């Protein structure tokens, strides 16, 4: 049984719609799967953290850990899916300073930069009151403070703690233990009107912090109960972290009681700018006081007069913004100095230096060597540098310079930054050839990807956009062309239909009436006595006039109603016309096609038919031919109609401009065709009409077509 075409089409449409809906449903389910991306384990040790998004802070990877050196209130780093529901997040956490807290967030959403600018839950270790703070943020903060176990334990800076936060339903459990210590603090909170889902993250408030071994996994009610009843910390995480971060600088923990006394700074401190000239020709020791502007890859300390690179005698856990006093041996360089074998004493923390806004030319002079600056430029190039760094080459006016960034979280920045974007970058300017490679006057050591600000994307007239625009214009032109031809065909079709209508009208009225008159005249003649010769002659004349009029009417009808006038029927229609014209005579009509016939537009068909008809009529009327030849030749981009005869011919110069020929030329011009008439007296006439065709686009013909275009 055969299915009707309409039903078949409907079935196909329904099937396609169902498939599309199914695909969309699968994508939606995948996106909203509460377990998508779980379990998760950080790749900080491999220097990868692209999946994390920062909201404030100076988040960077260092020795397999994620570090926020900033003392901002509520700097956050988020990862995961907003659809995550029941899961736990755990990590080793270290506070970098006192007077704040550091911890983990769970079920976070709607994050912005700001103090409590998110919706979600947070558990953190707080040094101010040596407690575990658990709370909920909704662009405002509500919290519960839990004392730590055992009683009297203090939260220290530079000390690793293991923190775990779990959410199952509307119950939240948090556990904390000092690494290496068996005592564990566990608490649960039930929030009846809880936030049901959200991402996981790291957060610090004022203290800065370091995180490692971040594990996020699905959690169940059983996990919750197990966590709450646990008396000893799990041992699965800590050993790996110790080995992974063996390079991490860990100093004896700082607490409120053993924090270095904030003594007045040394009276012998000197401005940083004076270092370059105070050690000329001799080895000298100097003491400066300034603020840490950069900790990696080099330590840079800056005061109001400039910056200096500091090479510490002993590694120290310094943060950007720490106000320090540095004593070391001066090594003068071309544009700045280095303090070698230096001792650094932290005076206080949390006073970050604002960047000095300079032009690239000002920075290129070396006046801002080892200084935290802000500079703008266009991104020319980006590539991976040595030691797992990302290198961005920029230009500003006639100056070019380079930005160097530790790969860490910069990977997504690297991927997303479009060439020729206008950027504003903050970082420490260095003139050292180690960084400039002798190719640019200065380089900028950026602290994190957050130091990049895109001021404007690349201009729209990029090569890619221009090509795209060209393609769009070509497509538009192509569509316009198609529409034009379609409208033109419709017009010609309408004209043809009107002509056919006229032809039918003429056939049914005028021709029939003329035929009727002829019959009536014949009847009169039959009934008229032979003696009335005069009347018979007049009747014969009238009958002849009627026949002539009838023939004319038929010819007009034929002219108005081309028979089977399509590309296949053009030749046969012309042949039919020729045969009709020479009917009763001794003229041979030969018609042939050369080449592969192609579909011709109605307009072209009609014009060629009219031109051929006129040429045939002229040949029959004036040349008295023995043979009429009609040839239709199809080439790649032209169609040629040739009508030739072997008749009397004519004097070309004298008759070529006749009214009929002018009409033919006009009609040929309307289809952008050429009309060529060649004739000599006694040797026949040849009429050649060559009309252009749209090129036949095939795979093999593309190269030749392109050559023609360009």
């Amino acid at each position, binding site marked *: 049984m055969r299915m009707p075409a309409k039903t078949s089409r409907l079935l196909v449409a329904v099937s396609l719609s169902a498939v599309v809906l199914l695909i969309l449903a699968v994508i939606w389910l995948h996106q909203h799967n509460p377990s998508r991306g779980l379990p998760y384990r950080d790749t900080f040790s491999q220097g990868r953290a692209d999946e994390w998004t920062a909201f404030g802070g100076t988040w960077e990877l260092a020795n397999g850990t994620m570090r926020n050196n900033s003392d901002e209130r509520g700097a956050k780093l988020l990862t995961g899916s907003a659809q995550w529901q029941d899961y736990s997040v755990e990590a080793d956490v270290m506070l970098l300073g006192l007077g704040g807290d550091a911890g983990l967030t769970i079920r976070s959403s709607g994050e*912005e*930069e*700001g103090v409590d600018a998110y919706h979600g839950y947070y558990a953190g270790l707080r040094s101010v009151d040596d407690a575990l703070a658990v709370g909920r943020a909704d662009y405002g903060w509500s919290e519960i403070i839990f*004392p730590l176990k055992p009683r009297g334990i203090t939260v220290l800076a530079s000390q690793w703690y293991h923190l775990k936060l779990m959410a199952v339903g509307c119950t939240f459990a948090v556990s904390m233990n000092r690494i290496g210590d068996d005592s564990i603090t566990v608490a649960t909170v*039930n*929030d009846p009107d809880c936030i049901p889902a959200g991402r996981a993250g790291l957060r610090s408030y004022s203290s800065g912090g370091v995180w490692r071994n971040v594990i996020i996994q699905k959690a169940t009610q059983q996990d919750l109960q197990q966590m709450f009843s646990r008396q000893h910390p799990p041992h699965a995480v800590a050993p790996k972290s110790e080995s992974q971060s063996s390079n991490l600088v860990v100093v004896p923990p700082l607490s409120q009681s053993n924090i270095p006394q904030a003594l007045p700074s040394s009276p012998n401190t000197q401005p940083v700018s004076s270092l370059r000239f105070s050690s000329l020709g001799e080895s000298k020791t100097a003491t400066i006081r300034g603020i840490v502007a950069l900790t990696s890859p080099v330590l840079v300390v800056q005061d109001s007069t400039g910056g200096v690179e500091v090479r510490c005698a002993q590694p120290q856990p310094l943060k950007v913004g720490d106000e320090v006093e540095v004593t070391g041996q001066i090594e003068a360089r071309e544009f700045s100095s280095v303090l070698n074998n230096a001792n650094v004493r932290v005076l206080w923390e*949390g006073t970050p230096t604002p960047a000095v806004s300079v032009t690239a030319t000002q920075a290129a002079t070396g006046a801002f060597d080892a200084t935290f600056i802000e500079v703008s430029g266009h991104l020319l190039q980006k590539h991976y540098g040595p030691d797992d760094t990302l290198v961005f080459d920029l230009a500003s006016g006639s100056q070019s310079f380079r930005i160097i960034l530790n790969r860490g979280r910069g990977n997504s920045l690297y991927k997303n930054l479009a060439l020729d974007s206008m950027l504003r970058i903050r970082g420490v300017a260095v003139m050292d050839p180690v960084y400039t490679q002798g190719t640019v006057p200065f380089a900028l050591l950026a602290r994190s990807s957050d130091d990049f600000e895109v001021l404007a994307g690349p201009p729209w007239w990029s090569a890619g956009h221009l090509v795209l625009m060209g393609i769009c214009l070509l497509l538009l032109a192509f569509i316009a062309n198609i529409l034009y031809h379609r409208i033109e065909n419709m017009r010609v079709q309408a004209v043809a239909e009107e002509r056919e209508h006229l032809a039918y009208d003429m056939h049914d009225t005028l021709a029939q009436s003329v035929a009727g008159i002829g019959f009536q005249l014949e009847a009169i003649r039959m009934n008229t006595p032979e003696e009335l010769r005069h009347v018979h002659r007049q009747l014969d004349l009238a009958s002849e006039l009627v026949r002539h009029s009838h023939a004319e009417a038929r010819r007009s009808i034929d002219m108005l109603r081309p028979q089977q006038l399509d590309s296949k029927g053009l030749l046969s229609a012309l042949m039919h016309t020729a045969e009709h014209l020479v009917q009763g005579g001794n003229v041979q009509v030969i018609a042939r096609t050369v080449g592969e016939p192609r579909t011709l537009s109605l307009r072209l068909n009609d014009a060629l038919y009219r031109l051929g008809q006129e040429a045939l009529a002229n040949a029959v009327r004036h040349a008295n031919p023995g043979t009429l030849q009609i040839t239709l030749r199809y080439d790649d981009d032209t169609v040629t109609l040739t009508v030739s005869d072997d008749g009397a011919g004519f004097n070309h110069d004298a008759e070529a401009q006749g009214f009929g020929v002018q009409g033919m030329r006009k009609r040929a011009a309307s289809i952008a065709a050429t009309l060529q008439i060649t004739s000599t007296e006694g040797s026949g006439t040849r009429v050649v009409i060559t009309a252009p065709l749209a090129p036949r686009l095939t795979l093999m013909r593309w190269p030749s077509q392109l050559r023609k275009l360009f």
Partner: protein
Amino acid sequence: MTESEHGGAMAAADPEHARIYWNAPTREDDIEGQIAMVERVANGGAQGLILVPDHTSALISPVRSALAKGIPTVILSSPLAMPPGDHLFYLLNDEVRGGELAAERVSSILHNHGKVAILGIDPDISGITTRARSLKETLARTDPGIQIVTDAIGSFNVPHEQQMAEETLKAHPDLDVIVALTAVSGHGALSALASSGNTHVKVIYYDPGDTSFDDPNLDSMILQDTRSMGYDAVRIILASLRNQPIPPQKKFEPTLVTRENVNSSKVEKLSYMEWRTKPLQWTWSIGP
């Protein structure tokens, strides 16, 4: 006391079904961050702006820009260096009275004889300089026998303020009272005294984060009525949107909180920290 302020704003907004967007820069001295936040809010379709400015003059342009967009703006606590009017309103802490309160408290402790240090002066915030001036003028007038040994510029950095306090204590071992003009400065002073073991010096400080009297050196605190400011600010915005007449400026008298009155209903109301209109119904336990 930002939670109280937030609570006041929420209490006024909730019955009117107004939505509050509440945020602050992650650093208290991040003026650029606050400017960016104001611009973002003004460009984000907010119908009103309530601002506690971090700087007297730097916030003028963004506030003018918000006003030009027809956004009624209420400045809380400390004024900008521009006059009120044309949809700009001030709800200010009465800093002159705040200075007088501290002076009266110092007077009651020292009885016209002793040494006082004033710490934490922030020239960027006009309210703080006003309270410092009022304190000094009142003391000079009422207790000329009291000597002000130092008045130090402060910051929003506790260790820095602690160091300033320690330097002051070293320079003036016979100091009697420290008046800290900010909470940060007050915490720094208390930390310095705690680490030195000094129990003689009394500390009076302004704008505390909470009203606990755990520290023996803490004498008293001067509290702004931030809850009323937050409440009135939202009411003003709503009234302005309804074209109702509003006085361009209003001052709120601060309150001296001492160990004696800390549990009074007035102080409890002033220091109530809950900002949600429907407090969280949390239950919790410590295990195992």
